[in-house]
């Protein structure tokens, strides 16, 4: 085991411990927390942020940032909704939704790679462009009312486990294999660790960077499918601030904003911490204003713990 991977493991342990302690505290405070229906609720409520955060993790490990994910959720969603209402059938509609996500991601990646612009600027611009496109396309109105087959994406169950939870686990499994067992995955870390060295080693950094943002667009589109099914409606104003939730889940999960290190397991636990926290604060009847303070404190606290941990290891 290399030093850096031991560090990653120690960090993940800290994040998992945080989740366990948080759950324990909630269990002690309210009898409504540790029940099967409630935990399934938490899992379901976490699924959308967790899936968006998959893409965000790829991007952040590569040393970038993607602020356009929330807008991509909205545009993919309304594309999906319009296709379904146009009678295109589920497979074609899903292909359109995912296609929109990947296309937006490719545009992000291409401008960042070949235009040589900072990811923050490009995805900030795309956040606005894509949101505007969703509003123009729908004239600002939600597209709603879908058939039961599509709604089963959110409402369906397998052995009592809600479909979005199964979908989330499947996405994480596949993404984890891609990130840790493929050449592409290794390049994601390499680009984030030292982009120049990676380029000198003969890797097409531009191509791989573009693909990384396409992965993020794809993840956002998958989240859009679940969100649209869950609300039985595609809203052009959906997904606002999702980028911040996804960044939060990723950094709570121990991925460094400097790039080069991080893991999807950490991100999943990070997303769960946010979900459990929101759920628990609701159950306890904590006011929504206080909730924001607590969530903000947890984000800073988690990263603080990380930083201190890192300093001690070094």
């Amino acid at each position, binding site marked *: 085991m290399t030093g850096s991977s031991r560090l990653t493991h120690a960090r993940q*342990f*800290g994040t998992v*411990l*945080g989740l366990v*302690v*948080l759950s324990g*505290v*909630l269990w002690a*405070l*309210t*009898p*409504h927390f540790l*029940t099967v*229906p*409630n935990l399934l*609720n938490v899992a*379901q*409520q976490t699924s*959308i942020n967790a899936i968006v955060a998959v893409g965000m993790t790829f991007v952040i490990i590569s040393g970038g940032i993607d602020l356009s994910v929330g807008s991509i959720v909205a545009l993919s969603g309304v594309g999906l909704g319009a296709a379904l209402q146009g009678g295109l059938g589920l497979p074609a509609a899903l292909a359109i939704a995912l296609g929109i996500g990947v296309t937006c991601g490719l545009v992000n990646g291409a401008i960042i790679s070949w235009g040589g612009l900072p990811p923050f600027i490009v995805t900030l611009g795309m956040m606005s462009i894509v949101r505007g496109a969703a509003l123009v396309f729908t*004239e*600002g*109105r*939600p597209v*709603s*009312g879908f058939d039961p087959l599509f709604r089963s994406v*959110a409402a369906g169950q397998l052995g009592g486990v809600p479909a979005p939870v199964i979908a989330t686990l499947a996405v994480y499994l596949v993404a984890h294999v891609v990130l840790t067992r493929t050449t592409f995955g290794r390049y994601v870390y390499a680009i984030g660790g030292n982009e120049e060295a990676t380029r000198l080693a003969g890797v097409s950094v531009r191509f791989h960077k573009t693909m990384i943002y396409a992965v993020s667009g794809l993840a956002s589109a998958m989240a859009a499918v679940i*969100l649209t099914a*869950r*609300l*039985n*409606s595609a*809203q052009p*104003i*959906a997904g*606002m*601030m999702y980028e911040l939730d996804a960044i939060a889940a990723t950094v709570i999960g121990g991925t460094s904003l400097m790039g080069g290190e991080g893991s999807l397991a950490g991100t999943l636990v990070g997303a769960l911490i946010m979900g459990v926290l*929101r*759920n*628990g*604060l*609701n*159950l*306890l*009847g*904590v*006011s*929504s*204003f*206080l*909730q*924001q303070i*607590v969530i903000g*404190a*947890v984000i800073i*606290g988690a990263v*603080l*713990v990380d930083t*201190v*941990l890192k300093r*001690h290891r070094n």
Partner: protein
Amino acid sequence: MRKTTVVLVAALAASSLSCNRAAPETTDKPKVALVLKTLNHPFFVDMRRGAQEAADRLGVQLEVQAAEREIDVEKQMQIVENMIQTGIKALVITPSGSREIVSALVKAQTANVPIIIVDTRVDEKAAAEAGVHTETFVGSDNYEGGKLAGAHVVNVTGGKARVGILEGIPGHETGDSRLRGFRDAVKDAPGITVVASQPANWERDQGFNVFQNMLQAHPDIDTVFAASDLMALGAIEAIAAAGKTGRIKVVGFDALDDAKKAIAAGTMDASVAQFPSEMGKAAIESVVKAIRGEKLPASIMVKLEMVTKESLVRR
């Protein structure tokens, strides 16, 4: 370092604990959830006050929750799911999305929680398709409110005006009804032309920007109808910035305190008053009846009133 995590989480837990103690869970009072669109708008703060007063009087334990942002219907759905887990006896909700919220209401109904809708109606078709039954709707008729505003404009302009409209978020039943009412009221006055109509998404700063742009494009606008006072107040700032204060009549909706001040000062002409605290009160009274198993009317309408400089003086 693990200790740091534990201490951190424990500290957070302790802070939630102290909040929790204010409302102990073991009580024979029925627990009712009031899920609002947001709590950072005076309208909903007033509604909460009215509901809380009624709850205290009638022996109801009220849990108030709201999403961080008014338009976040998915977060509102999460809140409903979470509140159902705490064994609430009734759900009072102001839907952030007329159609989208239906999925959450299905869950409440499945858990045998009676539902009372306040302020914004649920889309009837979507509710019928999902088989959702609501006990009653408490609110004011936004369409009638819009008509009231339109009639006022016809009245004070002598039936001759060039009107700019600031809309709420498109697709929201509340704003759409107000606009329909307004347009229906002015359409029979041939001298009244709506020269521009743009969404400013219920927000004050957007009301400023959108109206500033509108005024650039149509310098001849002499009357503004804003579907909410926050947007109207934004427009008033834009009018002041253009040096046109007093030359453009502004009619808003909600009669917020700031709007009343503007009306008294003469920078605003009028506003349609709703009574959100009355809505909150009526909602909780209905909850008590619903829990007792009493039958409720399909809707309970709360009065509307036109607030003008004269009406403020009369008070």
